[in-house]
């Protein structure tokens, strides 16, 4: 019964943590805008969220069965499956960071992060309202 209350929260929680991961990725791209040879990266957000909320194991994920095991990110959020962006304009130092695109993505991701935060507080408030006594004002 109780997990039915928190199931909808679970989806938003996954979305929030993926958003914060993508925000960090975009910040790295902006930080390396002047580094020679740096290739800008991004994650396929839709498939990462689909994998995280599907409830079944991600193919290729490593299971951490002992306390010393590494548990690297798997699926679309893992380092090997992140996407590389191509340079919008040719660059002599083979840096593929397009500052306009990265800034736009960063702002977009920030707004969507905030939207996810509001969805969470909205559904928490709805649950709290449902639990309120009817007679209390």
């Amino acid at each position: 019964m109780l997990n039915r209350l928190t199931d909808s929260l679970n989806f938003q929680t996954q979305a929030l943590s993926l958003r914060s991961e993508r925000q960090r990725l975009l910040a790295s791209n902006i930080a390396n805008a002047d580094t020679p040879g740096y290739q800008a990266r991004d994650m396929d957000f839709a498939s990462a969220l689909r994998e995280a909320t599907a409830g079944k194991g991600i193919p290729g994920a490593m299971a951490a069965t002992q306390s010393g095991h590494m548990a690297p990110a798997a699926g679309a959020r893992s380092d090997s499956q992140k996407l590389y962006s191509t340079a919008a304009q040719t660059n002599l130092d083979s840096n593929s960071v397009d500052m306009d695109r990265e800034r736009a993505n960063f702002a977009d991701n920030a707004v969507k992060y905030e939207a996810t935060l509001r969805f969470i507080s909205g559904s928490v408030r709805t649950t709290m309202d449902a639990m309120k006594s009817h007679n209390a004002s």
Partner: protein
Amino acid sequence: MSMFQIFSVSGSAVSAQSQRLNIVASNLANADTVAGPDGQAYKARQVVFQTALMGAGNDLASAGVRVSNISEDQTPGRKVHDPKHAQADAEGYVTYSNVNTVEEMVNMISASRSYQNNIEVMSTAKNLLLKTLQLGQS
């Protein structure tokens, strides 16, 4: 908590860019210096940026920047014929530094824009984290 690493990533970029600005300032300050007693004029310097992984376990998602090297421009300095100058050589030429002021000004603008970009990234991340702290209140 992956968003906290934005501060170390952008912080490293800001410090690398400020080092670049520092180098530009010394280049511009020495744009008109002549060769010293050793016959060597000031040589323009450039920073070389390199990606530095900041996260635990060398996570590629948090890639900061560091200055890996400061290279000196080896092109010969500007020579001006001025036999009356105190630093003139036997043929009457004075060697000035090889700083290109136009290039340095462009470099300065680029460094300052990147600096501002990273500061803005940090303030956005701070706002988002503060809003996350307020989750469930109000």
